[in-house]
């Protein structure tokens, strides 16, 4: 049967979206109603049920903003402002994106390097893995302020400390995935190389590396999302002036809940974009390597 994009992909996704939006509206009503009731009583205002519901959905600083409030704030701050303005979400997303990409690039390279070491050096295989796993059990929220403060003390601020936190989060999936990928060739394929009296370098470049590529892309999808989390977390403790994280923090300071939510959405859109880009590159590379069309 021919796959039907509308039936197989769009309708299921839209259905879930509709469910989420409905729950969100109901939630917004119940979260904001007590404050609105309080306000109305003090102002001696009486309103019909419909008017009352409308008011819970249009507070300037609601506990839970309604979806349309978030959407209009998001649209306004994304498309209506100059991208250099510090009220523009595009500007903040760009700041976060640059440290995400820097951290992701370093993290991926570091992860690959560690994996190559683990696969080829027995001593590293035995010693390194427990430490790598331990490194990820430490909460990033505990590490991030220390990194920022320590680097700040030696006058390294801005992009690099944030990128380091992203690196810290993103090297792990790549290292684990690449160890698996570099070890994925079957015994028979390794035996074949042995019958040719291939050198270790030849076996590495002609067999282990190509065999590991699918594993690399799978782990890079996880790593790029982790990098973004790292960059946002890195913006929180510094009181950074720009970036999605600083936008979240500023919103929290001034109870600008609508701003918090629209910054959250900007973060998710960014994550989705990044993961999609990695996915598209993965598909192109797979095609170039003779992958069977799905």
């Amino acid at each position, binding site marked *: 049967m021919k796959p039907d994009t509308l039936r197989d992909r769009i309708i299921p996704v839209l259905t879930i979206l509709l469910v989420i939006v409905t729950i969100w509206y109901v939630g917004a009503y119940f979260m904001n109603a007590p404050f609105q009731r309080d306000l109305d009583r003090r102002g001696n205002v009486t309103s019909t049920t419909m008017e009352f519901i409308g008011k819970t959905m249009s507070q300037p600083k609601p506990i839970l903003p309604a979806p349309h409030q978030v959407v209009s704030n998001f649209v306004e701050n994304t498309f209506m402002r100059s991208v250099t303005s510090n009220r523009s979400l595009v500007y903040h997303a760009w700041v976060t994106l640059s440290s995400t990409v820097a951290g992701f690039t370093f993290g991926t390279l570091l992860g690959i390097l560690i994996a190559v070491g683990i696969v080829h050096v027995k001593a590293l295989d035995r010693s390194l893995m427990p430490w790598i796993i331990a490194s990820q059990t430490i909460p990033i929220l505990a590490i991030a302020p220390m990194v920022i403060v320590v680097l700040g003390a030696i006058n390294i601020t801005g992009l690099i400390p944030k990128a380091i936190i992203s690196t810290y989060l993103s090297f792990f999936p790549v290292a684990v995935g690449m160890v698996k990928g570099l070890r994925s060739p*079957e015994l*028979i*394929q390794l*035996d*074949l*190389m*042995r*019958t*040719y*009296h*291939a050198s270790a370098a*030849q076996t590495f470049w*002609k*067999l282990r590396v*190509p*065999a590991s*590529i699918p594993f690399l892309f799978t782990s890079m999808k996880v790593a790029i999302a982790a990098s973004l989390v790292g960059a946002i977390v890195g913006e929180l403790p510094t009181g950074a002036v720009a970036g999605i994280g600083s936008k979240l923090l500023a919103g929290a300071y001034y109870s600008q809940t609508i701003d918090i939510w629209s910054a959250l959405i900007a973060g998710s859109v960014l994550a989705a974009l990044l993961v999609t880009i990695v996915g598209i590159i993965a598909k192109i590379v797979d095609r170039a*390597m*003779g992958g*069977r069309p799905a």
Partner: protein
Amino acid sequence: MAENQSSVVSAKKLGLTFETSDGPVHALSNVDLEVKKGDFVSFIGPSGCGKTTFLRVIADLEKATSGEITVNGMSPEEARKSRSYGYVFQAPALYPWRTIEKNIALPLEIMGYSAADRASRIERTLDLVNLAGFGKKYPWQLSGGMQQRASIARALAFDADLLLMDEPFGALDEIVRDHLNEQLLKLWARTEKTICFVTHSIPEAVYLSTKIVVMSPRPGRVTDVIESTLPKERPLEIRETPEFLEIAHRVREGLRAGHSYEE
């Protein structure tokens, strides 16, 4: 055939014992065998008789634990390092990210053949296994039989005059297998290689071989060596002749004798 043919594989009292947690396993014991240049030798026997292990010892993929073996007059390790044999595995083991011609080029790249030399060798070997025109295809675009032929082409691409084949057609259906057997004989005649061929099919062994080595398990050993009296020219119909059936009978007797002490 002349008596003074040079010996390609020569094993004397060869033994191989695997140490396992359940105690030693005697995969090979006291194997004496001579393979002469130009021979087509089949190794036949039930699973566990050490036929594949013996092939892997020749290829230096396993080390013998006792006795002596030489390949082209050298130790198996030296023979492997001087690239004296091509090995065809049970599965094609083609690299899925390489096209068929790139797969055939793999050993040539590793051994440092020039690009022009690689191209002409790829063309020649594709032709030898009747895959001309399929060079640009990826392995998944080919049937199982074609993939195995491509893996034979890969083993023929470089200058090794010994071909080691480990049940190369074991996973294929009988019609394809008959066809490939016929092609393999023609290829053997054209290339004048020495072939060691592991199989568990009696008709296949008798049809292909100039010499059939019957083996039996626990410990893996040679129970009979049969020199085939069939002519070098063998149409598929030869399998109906009394001479063929007589040799097949002797192989079957040998297999049965090796099995008599168990079950």
